[in-house]
């Protein structure tokens, strides 16, 4: 692709991100950014390493609880709380990843799911810390006080712009990982682990590092999600949360990086429209969309668009 064309999606993406809370209801814009980053983290593992994690809610939720607890008990400014959450997710990912990257395919998915369910039960039982079913309520959101530079941080509109740099940092990290020699090795491992091993790459170790990086990004997203809602519930650790992220990746296009955010935007917006229309069975419709995309558009939304762009360029 020519250089000018390559930066076109980037420029368009930045413009969209910049105006999102002006055109959409700000809490929805916040949700889109958080879910987009979460889905990118899953894509990093699924699309570029070939590992389908069905337990990424463990990292999203662990980080959400950590960020919430740090903010509540220490009054730390929100970026610090979020980074603490991401760090906690990365630390958790080391043993989980160590035990699960030895398996592939469905076994890997099951092991990660098991760990996520474990975290769910722990959070549900450890009521003194997590509040159990009540969740962590009224998490404080501060940065140089509650009104940095005259903007009301409790207003989701302003908070969006304060949290955006952190989220963009996450997207940048994902992009950098994919377009690095390390990222190329991951793709090689995905396509042919035996050959990668024969070339002298320690496959398990590479997978473990990819797993921890992906968990840290999922944690970053989860921490931002907790801060956006000022509220952490057990749902953040529920298996449906892992499922939703995987659905976003498949819908957007596996291994495209751009697809996941697009699909996240569509799904979050769709849920918003449906809830405004008092349509309760949201899963029915999102599931239907999923089935249609998987059956008719194997490459997902972004994969299809990219193919189109390529065709235009050639034609």
């Amino acid at each position, binding site marked *: 692709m020519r250089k000018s064309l390559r930066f076109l999606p980037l420029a368009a993406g930045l413009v969209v991100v910049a105006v999102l*809370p002006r055109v959409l209801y700000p809490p929805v814009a916040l949700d889109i950014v958080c879910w987009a980053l979460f889905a990118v983290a899953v894509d990093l593992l699924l699309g570029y390493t070939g590992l389908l994690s069905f337990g990424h809610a463990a990292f999203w939720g662990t980080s959400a609880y950590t960020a919430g607890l740090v903010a509540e008990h220490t009054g730390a400014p929100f970026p610090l709380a979020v980074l603490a959450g991401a760090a906690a997710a990365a630390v958790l990912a080391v043993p989980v990843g160590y035990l699960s990257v030895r398996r592939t395919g469905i076994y890997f998915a099951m092991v990660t799911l098991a760990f996520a369910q474990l975290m769910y039960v722990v959070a549900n039982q450890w009521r003194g810390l997590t509040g159990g079913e009540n969740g962590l309520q009224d998490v404080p959101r501060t940065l140089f006080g509650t009104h940095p530079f005259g903007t009301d941080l409790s207003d989701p509109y302003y908070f969006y712009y304060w949290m955006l740099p952190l989220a963009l940092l996450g997207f940048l990290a994902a992009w950098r990982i994919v377009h690095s020699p390390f990222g190329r090795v991951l793709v090689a491992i995905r396509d042919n682990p035996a050959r990668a091993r024969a070339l002298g790459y320690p496959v398990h170790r590479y997978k473990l590092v990819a797993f921890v990086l992906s968990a840290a990004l999922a944690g970053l997203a989860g921490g931002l999600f907790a801060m956006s809602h000022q*509220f952490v519930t057990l749902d953040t650790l529920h298996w449906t949360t892992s499922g939703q992220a995987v659905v976003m990746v498949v819908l957007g296009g596996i291994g495209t990086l751009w697809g996941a955010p697009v699909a996240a935007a569509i799904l979050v917006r769709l849920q918003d*429209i449906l809830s405004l229309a008092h349509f*309760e069975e949201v899963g029915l419709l999102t599931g239907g969309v999923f089935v249609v995309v998987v059956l008719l558009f194997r490459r997902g939304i972004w994969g*299809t668009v990219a*193919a189109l762009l390529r065709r235009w360029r050639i034609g």
Partner: protein
Amino acid sequence: MRTIRIRKPLALAAAALVLAGCGGGGPRGGGGSKLTDGKIVLGVLNDQSGGYADLGGKNAVVAVQLAIDDFKAKYGAKAVTKDITVVTADHQNKPDVAKTDAQQMYDRQGVDAIFDVPTSSAALAVADVAKQDKRLYFNISAASDDLNGKSCNKFTFHYAYDTNMLANGTGAADTEGGARNWYLVYPNYAFGQDMTRGFTQAVSKAGGHVVATAGSPFPNPTEDYSSLLLKAASLNPKPDTLGVMQAGADLQNVVKQYNQFKLKDRGIKLAVGLMFITDIHSLGPDALAGTTFTDAWYWNFDQTNRSFANRFYAKTQTRPTFAHAANYSAALNYLEAVQAAGTDDAATVVGNLEGKKINDVFLRNGTVRAADHLVTHDAYLAQVKPSSQVAEPWDYEKIIKTIPADQAFNPPSGDCHL
């Protein structure tokens, strides 16, 4: 590559979907001084599909609509506005859904006051939103005393009842009536935890003893309480009373299983923390006959209540629970306060309501307590009639005594700083 051609519409459709029906963007607006946008919107946020759907649910919307009709009929052309509507949402008893819904109601639907919100964890989340958005919230169906304790705020009123009212009534009365050793089972979330705390205090104060407590998951999709109930017989000392703190459909399941296991024959009597008339109706009065409990309002108590119940029945084909009556009363008193203040500005309306003494179809000797926004009123100690004494459909309760407002509720806890 014939198939590629149909993919362009997909991408376009996706983009269109994200931007479809744009609006609601930008920073939050400030409150106006008169009626914002010339209308009043009331929001009813509650459970419309789960275990608490019968006690409030869609019929709570009917009750609020009745209040709107009565307000319009009373003031006619002199009303602050003729444009009063009610919107509603189902929070599925999930605190995060409740929080999002409440935010949507205030920000996007222009709701001036939210009513109802059963499930204490959800109610606490909505109270947070009310505080942040500086809009009113009248809690009706949630009982946690944190709502008027450590989580209280200027824009939240705790209207119908609370865990202390239930514990003071039932816990004390049953203990004085011979219940010495209690085994408490509770749903493990804010409401159940507060109920257990309240009952433990009330029982010990009356000279009884709580032998053990056990929590059940909430929500409890398995509907299985057998392990909790069967434990009762093995406790030492053996309890003589099972205190059930579950509510709504959960309560009904516990009572059914209590009867299946014949715990009564094993010398363990039933005490119920919170019961609505709809629960008795679902189970049938014989499943509960003789059980005493605290009620905040009973439809067949006097002629005033009865005539409201008749109007309610005409629209819903059921008798109102105390939550329905309280929704009606809260909505009407909110509208009266807006009328008196001449504005829907939340802070002004709060000022009008604080300290107000009210007597209406729901509130008897009612006071909107300024210190913690708890609305206190007379409560009732009731007993479930056996079916042989039920004179007409829904006539399930015998009111044993009226508990005066100052005894029914605890004084302000001191944890609340408005």
